[in-house]
């Protein structure tokens, strides 16, 4: 069994109109090498599902997003995601804006093959107003409580970046927080994982094996992508690249700024990408953020 493939192979599985989900959180451990491959591809009309960071803004800027399902889009240290903001303010983006917990519930419902999970989050807010598809249900038990029925967020494809993987699809997430990647993986028909390091076969002690957060049977393909989360962080290995994120953010207010960003950081080889970001050594040494 060998699930190793290239980012091009994985992105080649995408079709126009698909619903795709991303692991990570804001500017943290996003599968950015894969995102750049999507930016280079022809695919369009995507429904993007994410605890959003720069991947959301970039896909919006490239006109690939038909609908965004999100709880937020932010780069933390730069609170407002520039291209998400542009797309929203242009009024061109179809959105399903959810509470962060509802979003988790949607993934979990999909992961459990349930049509919905009940929740209170979202009641008495405009999350209901602006998502007319969200339905209320009444508890069938004596309490009779009225709840929100959060529908399953079924994904066609999920993309996740991890610290270590092997050719079988075993994965380790060794940063302080594993986020919600396990739900993202389980909510998807196909899940492609990029990894800082891909080994022939993980052979771990028990303490290390606990960093495995979802089983390999959920993994369709493994992509070797050292520094593959850049410019987002990949703890404990490297932090986010503020210099890059600022350049990206500033490009949104320049004339043809997105084209410049694309030419500089996307329409180039992996080697060129690294050189243009100060080299692999600098990227690998980016300090972890302090919260």
């Amino acid at each position, binding site marked *: 069994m060998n699930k190793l493939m290239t980012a091009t192979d994985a992105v080649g599985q995408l079709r126009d109109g698909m619903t795709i989900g991303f692991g990570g*959180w804001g500017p943290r451990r996003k599968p950015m090498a894969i995102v750049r491959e999507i930016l280079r591809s022809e695919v369009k009309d995507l429904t993007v599902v994410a605890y*959003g960071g720069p991947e959301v803004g970039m896909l919006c800027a490239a006109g690939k997003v038909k609908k965004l399902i*999100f*709880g*937020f*889009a*932010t780069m933390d240290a730069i*609170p*407002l995601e520039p291209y*998400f*903001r542009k797309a*929203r*303010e*242009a*009024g061109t983006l179809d959105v399903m*804006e*959810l*509470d*962060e*917990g*509802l979003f*988790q519930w949607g993934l979990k419902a999909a992961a459990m093959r349930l049509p919905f999970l009940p*929740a*209170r*989050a*979202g*009641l*008495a*807010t*405009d*999350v209901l*107003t*602006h998502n007319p598809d969200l339905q*209320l249900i*009444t508890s069938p038990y004596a309490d*009779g*409580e*009225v709840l929100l029925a959060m529908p399953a967020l079924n994904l066609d494809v999920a993309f996740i970046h991890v610290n270590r993987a092997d050719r079988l699809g075993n994965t380790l997430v060794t940063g*302080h*927080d*594993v*986020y*919600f990647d396990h739900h993202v993986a389980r909510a998807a028909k196909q899940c492609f994982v990029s990894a800082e390091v891909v080994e022939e076969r993980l052979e771990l002690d028990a303490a290390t094996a606990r960093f495995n957060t979802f089983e390999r049977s959920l993994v369709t393909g493994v992509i070797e992508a050292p520094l593959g989360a850049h410019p987002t962080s990949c703890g404990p290995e490297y932090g986010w690249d503020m210099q890059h994120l600022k350049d990206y953010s500033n490009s949104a207010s320049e004339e043809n700024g997105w084209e410049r960003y694309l030419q500089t950081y996307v329409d180039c080889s992996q080697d060129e990408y690294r050189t243009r970001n100060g080299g692999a050594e600098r990227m690998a040494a980016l300090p972890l953020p*302090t*919260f």
Partner: protein
Amino acid sequence: MSNANFSLAELMIVAASEAWRNNGELLASGLGIIPRLGASLAKLTHSPELLMTDSEAYLVEEPIPVGPRGDYVPKYSGYMPFERVFDCVWHGRRHAMVGPTQIDRWAQSNLSVIGDYHKPKVAMLGVRGLPGNSINHANSFFVPNHSKRVFVSGEVDMVSGVGFNPERWKPGMRNDLMFIGVAVTDLCVMDFNGPDHAARVVSLHPGVDFELVQERTGFPLLKADHLSETAHPTAEQLAVIAKLDPHNLRDKQLKGNPAGIRTAEELRA
């Protein structure tokens, strides 16, 4: 013992810390430098029973100083990644202090967009966790720029956090799990404990009068029964704050880093 030489930020940190007094063993989450210092001060002084995190993924019994840590090494007491924070939110044992962009007379809050939802004037972060937080556990507000732009006259543009507007609650929805604590602003401390949850001014910061607060608020305010001046930080509290904020990040949180005691002219400038 009071110390007349304190900043407005320090006064607000002390006022914020009061939000968590007598809360019991729950997760105190102060989002932003001043609320976080407030929660940390609460834990180090009057409410050691509070739970706190390192603002990333671990529980700590000793609140972590804000900013670069130098050779300070956090001492972890447990694990609290985002997924467990969500569990804690839904379970209700948390009190967060958040800084929404808009707040209305019903204590509803907005973090999503300004203007028309479908083509907003300003798109901000998105609702984040506000809908779930606000319906499940206690929330207080931090408002660094008390104005009618924040405390709006009508409803907030996008209700992200729930409040007391009866029209928003349909029969059968449980609104007894929510709790609004206080709003700590740069002018005063408010709560929503008037008749029918009307907003009240509980204390005024030094030099501020009620009329000024009302002028800068988009909806009518009541005076709390024992309307007083916001407590000045004590020397002991200032020492704890200085230790929690070794890089003086608190000086950069409010425009111009105003003094804690302001004259009427300064306030109306």
